[in-house]
């Protein structure tokens, strides 16, 4: 069981900011495959990975990051702070 968070247009496309997900996915990429298979809005949100970034337990990482022991995964577009 892990928290999956969505920000900015990813949140808007999926339609919620956060959900709890039961998954056996070994990596972020595997989790994305599961999400894409769920519903059209997930498939849309995850259609172009080059436009997405991921944080695992609040640290930026990449899509092949392992998920063992992870409590929180967040998906969002490239950041635009400053």
């Amino acid at each position, binding site marked *: 069981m892990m928290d999956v968070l969505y920000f900015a247009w990813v949140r808007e496309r999926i339609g919620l900011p956060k959900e709890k997900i039961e998954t056996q996915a070994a990596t972020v990429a595997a989790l994305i495959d599961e999400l894409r298979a769920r519903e059209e809005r997930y498939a849309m949100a995850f259609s172009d990975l080059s436009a997405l970034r991921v*944080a695992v337990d609040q640290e930026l990482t990449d899509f092949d990051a392992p998920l063992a022991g992870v409590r929180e995964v967040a998906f969002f577009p490239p*950041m635009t*702070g400053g």
Partner: protein
Amino acid sequence: MAEDAGLRVVVQEEPFDFGAEAERFAAERSDMGAVVTFTGVVRDVTGGLEGMEIEHYPGMTEKALAKIAAEAQARWSLGEVLVIHRYGKMTAGERIMMVATAAPHRKNAFEAAEFLMDYLKSRAPFWKKERAEGGQSWVAAKDEDEAALDRW
């Protein structure tokens, strides 16, 4: 707010007082000869901007900023580092954020402030959405902002 050896990171919704923060930061720095500040202002390029809304990732934001600030501090032997960043709604002319650095010499203070800004732009979890007459849209990340990181 995270407060460490000469490190202050603030993430807040309400406006901050740039002049007072700059003054407080620079006050009595008799061991540091150089203080640099940077402030980002909501810019209305077309004159049609109604406002901006900044979303962030509570928890990760503070961690990411503290990490960037600590790295700058170590790398340039800075005396103090201050980072303030707002989220939520703001209008044209309002200050979005500021950084301040203090170092013995100007080169370090400038470089560290630029490093902070470059990292903060592309590595701290903030997303800007602009509201104009025609509607609202997420601000796209710029390739040049990502490229700016190559310098460091």
